[in-house]
């Protein structure tokens, strides 16, 4: 059954909080939305799922007045409403938490929250009220963040909270969240969903975009599925199941859990001893030691911002460190270095933040495939010239193998959706067939089709007798992929557990609590 089409009639009866009719939007050649119809009943949580690049964010951005639709109409509570800009959206009671946060990095939390919603021409009054309101909100939904912290110093998880608080502060009764849990720990996520439930009970309407079917099943009332810019359909959550949704989404059957047989670890590939990293005065990595053997996947679980990033950067040769890193029996330099030296040592690195480290967003896909390997002999014509043709050919091949969409090597990285950007990076690094693969948040913001694919690649690499260090805030991912799990907290390793360990116990470790305490 589908609500989307029958919306017209119902509008008179029980007006929908939101109704979009015939929305179309294209970015240059890319048709992001094609004649989209969707209706969201008041006081419900409405899920939207779809592959990367399906057009979810675009659609919501149109609803929020960030983009202008090429065609179509928007009805809020049954009345047609023009939303030329975000201001009118806010006035219409819509709040949105963007997939890519819209925060001013060097402002405090408070400054970010009041921005655009100040009380008067002078700040201190607004700041005072906001501080008060913020503490109330924090208590009500216990979303605590330090109001005076500067945003760039906050973990992504906390920045996420700031975004949500922004929307709540503006008293939105229609709340749009675009992949809010991409960067949250399971606890944080569950917490968020409790909040959303609370909002629904207050009669607010929530639209939730996510790639995680579990979240859809657990929290939403209805779910709409998008594919390649079109609306495939809307179903009642109660009347569907993950497999069906996955199929609707991708258009084929998808394996929702990794199938891999037991690892048979070989020689030690990497050994880390008392590794320490200090960034601007603060020691973020406080003496970490572990080792990885060939043919195994070691997962690092932990709440974002507990030293995982520094660990990856130290191993990847981006951050200077103290201690020892022994790769294939040889000590690696720890200072005055860069990614190059590590690649030569047989380490490949899929960084946590593809848009900041992994890709040059303005470069074409084919140039990005050479990124980090531009000195590789196989991309050189001769002593002087690079062999761009070879690079392009290689890119086409990779795009085919990794099903990157659209498969246009000359398209700039920034014009691919998040998931496809990730595929480009993963393809580049995995296909180096390295002795050790460092991979951070491999499936952040990636659709289930792609997740399935990327997970397969990681396992395949392991089975090929390579070592993998997997860092992820997704416990599911850690547990389903890893052969051994290390839990990090506050720059230290709290302990090692087998992947079967139940979430509670891992959760406790991630919170810094050992069984005894």
């Amino acid at each position, binding site marked *: 059954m589908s609500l989307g089409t029958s919306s017209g009639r119902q509008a008179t009866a029980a007006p929908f909080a939101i109704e979009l009719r015939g929305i179309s939007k294209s970015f*240059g050649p890319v048709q992001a939305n094609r004649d989209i119809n969707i209706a969201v009943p008041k006081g419900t949580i409405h899920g939207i799922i779809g592959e990367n690049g399906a057009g979810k964010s675009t659609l919501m951005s149109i609803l929020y007045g960030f983009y202008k639709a090429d065609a179509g109409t928007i009805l809020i509570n049954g009345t047609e409403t023009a939303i030329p800009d975000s201001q009118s959206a806010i006035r219409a009671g819509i709040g949105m938490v963007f997939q890519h946060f819209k925060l001013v990095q060097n402002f405090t939390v408070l400054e970010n929250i009041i921005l655009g919603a100040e009380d008067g021409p002078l700040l201190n009054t607004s700041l005072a009220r906001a501080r008060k309101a913020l503490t109330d909100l924090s208590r009500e939904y216990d979303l605590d963040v330090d109001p005076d912290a500067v945003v760039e110093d906050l973990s992504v998880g906390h920045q996420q909270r700031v975004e949500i608080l922004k929307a709540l502060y503006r008293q939105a009764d229609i709340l749009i969240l675009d992949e809010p849990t991409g960067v949250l720990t399971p606890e944080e996520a569950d917490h968020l969903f409790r909040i959303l439930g609370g909002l629904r009970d207050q009669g607010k309407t929530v639209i939730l975009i996510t790639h995680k079917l579990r979240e859809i099943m657990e929290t939403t009332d209805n779910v709409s599925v998008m594919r390649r810019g079109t609306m495939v359909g809307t179903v009642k959550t109660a009347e569907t199941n993950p497999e069906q949704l996955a199929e609707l989404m991708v258009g084929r059957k998808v394996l929702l859990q990794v199938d891999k047989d037991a690892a048979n670890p070989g020689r030690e590939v990497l050994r880390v001893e008392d590794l320490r990293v200090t960034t601007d005065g603060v020691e973020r990595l406080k003496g970490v030691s572990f080792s990885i053997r060939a043919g195994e996947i070691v997962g690092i679980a932990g709440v974002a911002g507990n030293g995982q990033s520094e660990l990856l950067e130290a191993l*990847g040769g981006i951050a200077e460190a103290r201690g020892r890193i022994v790769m294939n029996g040889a000590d690696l330099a720890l200072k005055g270095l860069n*990614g190059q030296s590590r*690649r030569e040592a047989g380490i490949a690195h899929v960084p946590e933040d593809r848009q900041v480290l*992994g890709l040059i*967003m303005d470069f074409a896909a084919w140039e990005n495939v050479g990124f980090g390997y531009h000195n590789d002999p196989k991309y050189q014509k001769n002593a*002087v*010239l690079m062999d761009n043709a070879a690079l392009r050919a290689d890119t086409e091949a990779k795009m085919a193998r990794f099903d990157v969409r659209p498969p246009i090597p000359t398209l700039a990285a920034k014009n691919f959706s998040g998931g496809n950007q990730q595929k480009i990076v993963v393809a580049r690094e995995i296909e180096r067939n390295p002795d050790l693969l460092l991979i951070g948040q491999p499936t952040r913001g990636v659709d289930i089709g792609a997740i399935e694919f990327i997970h397969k690649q990681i396992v395949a690499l392991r089975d090929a007798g390579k070592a993998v260090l997997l860092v992820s805030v997704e416990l599911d991912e850690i547990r389903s992929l890893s052969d051994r799990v290390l839990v990090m907290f506050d720059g230290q390793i709290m302990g090692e557990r087998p992947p079967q360990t139940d979430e509670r116990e891992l959760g406790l470790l991630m919170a810094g609590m050992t069984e005894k305490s």
Partner: protein
Amino acid sequence: MTKLPRWADVVLVPLICLAIAFVFCGILIASIGQSPVVALTSMITGALGTQTGWGYTLFYATNFMLTGLGVSIAFHASLFNIGGEGQATLGGFGVAIACLFFPWPHWSMALLGSITLSALFGALWALIPAWLQAKRGSHIVITTMMFNFIAYALISYLLVNVLKPEGTMDPATARFDKAFNLPKLADIFGAVGIPFSKAPPANIMLFVALGLAFATWVLLWHTRLGYAIRAFGKQEKAAVYAGIGPVRITLYALLLSGGISGLMAVNAVQGGAHRLVLNSVEGAGFIGIAVALMGRNHPFGIVLASLLFGFLYQGGNQLALATDPVTGEQLKIPREVIIVLQALVILFTGALPYMVQRPLEKLFAKLKGAA
């Protein structure tokens, strides 16, 4: 992402912008009681109507090509080197040394000598700012600006107190040995049997500059260094991930930038004046910035932009001499009108293409609809 066909974007839009600029300038000329038509025609004939005109246009264009290329390389590393003026000034000093103190047996050797020294001095003048930027994070815009002023002072000291021959009024070096004069277009074309005006100073450096433009293109898009420079320019942190050393790239980019700007002096000093005078650069360093920006930092675009500016310079010079065909009287157009014209051209072709693109897109959409 523009919806225009490429040719329209690359050819049509700039032409329309250019036209608009000239219309505005025509209004200005008319408003001071002169005939825009006569003015424009005399500019065009003066710059493109005769071999001599072409020769001068190309001579100026060569200057701008070199400084423009210099600026653009730094730009690709997202370093705004506004020191082209000073680097070219020092380049002039290099040329003077090469042409005054070495007994070259042949002009070609002299050319090699002056190219080497001017590039060297230009690069050296960029070295300290580059090093400070790389090591201390001292903002390149300030340091290069300061080094422009320091260069003026240094060169005027050298000319007045060191290089100036006894008893001459002119704060300039002696004339270089005639044997070191660079072959002019007349000689080069003459060699292949094409007669060309002897008057203009346009010389072999034109081809050197064109060669450099091509070399720059190869460097930026077909070599590892170019790749590294562009990547560094886009995302510095990512560059480190990729194994690109910020310090090294900063130095390379600015040294190349300064070196190429320095070469401008070979054209102006050895090719044109045959001696080093005060202010031998005459703002070409700054025009280079405009040229690089208008050429969208692409060597091909830079060549076109330099030709445009060469045309404006030479056309402007001619405008000052233009006479009314009817009365035979000299037009009374102050030279500053040409500066205004340059401004309008920079503004419309460089900063306002979008103003033209949008309507064009609509138009093309209509045409498509019709077709």
